């Protein structure tokens, strides 16, 4: 078999079970690809010994006729997941040298299902960012380039390393996390598929916390079928996460029939924002047409509070972050600043946090501190939580009116150049999440599917938003869209 790293999860799974290839062969092919791809900055902690050991164990399991869903499939893991004995530092200097004594629930479920870990993947520090430039490892790079232009582009963020690694065929799939769009925006920027499940589907235990009421893990894969396979292995009830849902997990892959006849797809008119590039608008219209041709009914809907999702997010997420990140104090793990003679414990906290956190993380912690401080709590934090109630109600009203899924763009643009937003106001970067953040606030599942290339030769994605807990139905609609769009483009190798 040639080009083993180009295989999708489903293809590799079937080849492994047939005995056409071994997990060790697959794993070695990926490790070689990773060795040659340092220019992408995707893998930041490589774990070849663990990978080969897991691959050998997987081959033994397959031989013994015990081949669970992910058995022998080599994947990458976002640096936000705690992995036992392997550096897990959320791309932050403040967690330099931290090697967890425990395994996150999601990664241990994947390993129980036979997955092979190739290493840890780059990201924006503490998952705060949309370009993978806020990282202690140096920026991750998009394998895609504009036609005839050598500028290095961002893979998006925060799961930028995951997106870059999957798009460049360094691994078969990767884990991501999504607090405001961190799976879907990088998936769209790199021409891959990514799903954020319903809040509560995946356990958050062992995932470094950013904003606990919004954070969800999900798979980043080469197509919709792979997303179904990997999501199923990742989700399920976990007593260690009190917000994890005690609901049965359906067989997502079995639900991929591609038949969406009779489904109602909503097109939210408020998403047609001012200044939306013509190409995005056209892509969206074409996507709606594809679903209609597949037998769905397309209707215009209204989500009147859409405009307020980003401002509400930039109150709620920093507020939760300021509380979650208070634990990084230089006492129990990670970095501690060197103190001068006479400096006390407050100097230790302040210097440790100034040295350890990057600027965007510091900014969000301080904004969160401000909106929670005495006298502003009602004006900012409580108001944002009320607006969040209204945003969720918008979706509930649409679903109650018979809408099965909502179609929208995934991003307001294709991938931009590394450094291009450096001089921009932080708020400009926040606008990247304008189409994705609403459903984190509403707790809903959303999937980004690549559907076309823009005039610069870069991938563009559409997003489908589903009813709570109906990831199976949502993935089936995404599957129909994928079939109709027929996106097969790959980046030309330059790294």
């Amino acid at each position: 078999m040639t080009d083993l790293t180009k295989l999708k999860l489903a293809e590799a799974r079937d080849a492994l079970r047939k005995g056409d290839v071994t997990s060790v062969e697959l794993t070695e092919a990926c490790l070689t690809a990773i060795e040659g791809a340092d220019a992408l900055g995707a893998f930041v902690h490589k774990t070849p010994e663990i990978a080969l050991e897991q691959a050998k164990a997987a081959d033994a399991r397959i031989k013994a006729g015990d081949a669970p869903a992910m058995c022998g499939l080599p994947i990458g893991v976002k640096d936000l997941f705690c992995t036992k004995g392997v550096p897990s530092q959320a791309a932050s200097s403040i967690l330099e040298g931290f090697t967890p004594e425990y395994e996150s629930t999601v990664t241990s479920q994947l390993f129980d299902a036979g997955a092979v870990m190739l290493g840890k993947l780059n990201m924006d520090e503490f998952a705060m960012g949309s370009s993978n430039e806020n990282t202690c490892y140096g920026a991750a790079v998009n394998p895609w380039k504009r036609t005839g232009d050598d500028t290095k582009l961002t893979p998006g963020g925060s799961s930028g390393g995951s997106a870059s690694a999957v798009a460049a065929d360094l691994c078969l799939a990767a884990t991501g996390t999504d607090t405001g769009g961190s799976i879907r925006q990088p998936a769209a920027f790199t021409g891959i598929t990514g799903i954020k499940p319903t809040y509560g589907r995946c356990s958050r235990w062992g995932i470094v916390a950013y904003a606990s009421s919004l954070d969800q893990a999900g798979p980043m894969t080469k197509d919709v079928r792979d997303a179904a396979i990997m999501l199923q292995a990742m989700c399920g009830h976990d007593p260690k996460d009190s917000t994890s849902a005690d609901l049965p997990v359906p067989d997502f892959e079995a639900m991929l029939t591609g038949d969406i006849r009779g489904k109602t797809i909503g097109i939210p008119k408020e998403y047609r924002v001012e200044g939306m590039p013509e190409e995005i608008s056209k892509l969206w219209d074409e996507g709606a047409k594809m679903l209609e041709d597949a037998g769905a009914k397309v209707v215009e809907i209204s989500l009147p509070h859409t405009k307020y999702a980003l401002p509400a997010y930039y109150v709620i997420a920093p507020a939760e972050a300021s509380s979650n990140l208070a634990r990084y104090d230089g006492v129990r793990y990670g970095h501690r600043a060197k103190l001068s003679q006479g400096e006390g414990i407050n100097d230790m906290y302040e210097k440790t946090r100034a040295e350890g956190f990057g600027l965007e993380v510091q900014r969000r912690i301080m904004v969160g501190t401000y909106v929670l401080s005495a006298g502003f709590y009602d004006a900012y934090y409580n108001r944002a939580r009320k607006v969040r109630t209204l945003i969720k109600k918008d979706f509930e009203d649409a679903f109650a009116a018979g809408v099965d899924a909502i179609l929208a763009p995934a991003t307001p643009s294709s991938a931009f150049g590394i450094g291009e937003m450096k001089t921009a106001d932080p708020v400009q970067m926040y606008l990247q999440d304008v189409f994705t953040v609403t459903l984190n606030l509403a707790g809903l599942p959303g999937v980004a599917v690549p559907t076309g290339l823009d005039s610069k030769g870069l991938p563009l994605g559409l997003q489908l938003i589903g009813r709570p807990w109906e990831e199976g139905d949502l993935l089936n609609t995404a599957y129909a869209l994928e079939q109709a769009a027929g996106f097969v483009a790959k980046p030309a190798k330059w790294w």
Partner: protein
Amino acid sequence: MSIDIQTAARVAKLARIRVEDEALPALAQEFSNILEFIEQLNEVDVEGVEPMVSVTPMRLKRRADGVTDGNMQDKILANAPDAREGFFAVPKVVE
């Protein structure tokens, strides 16, 4: 609402992040821009709306109030920047 340098310094102090004096004006400006963006929320009529507590209506599960693990002092201290005699060590807190 615009944030002055004193407020920026107070927030940095509350957040336990050391910010040098010369960095405060730029920080105050960034805060002001972010707050201006956030203040769009004032346009929304939130009269009678309940603030969201949980995005998914669910009853949090309770567990039995029993000891389920322990005896892992070495594991807990393994990542500490400074651990001595089975404790986390910090600079002197009380005189």
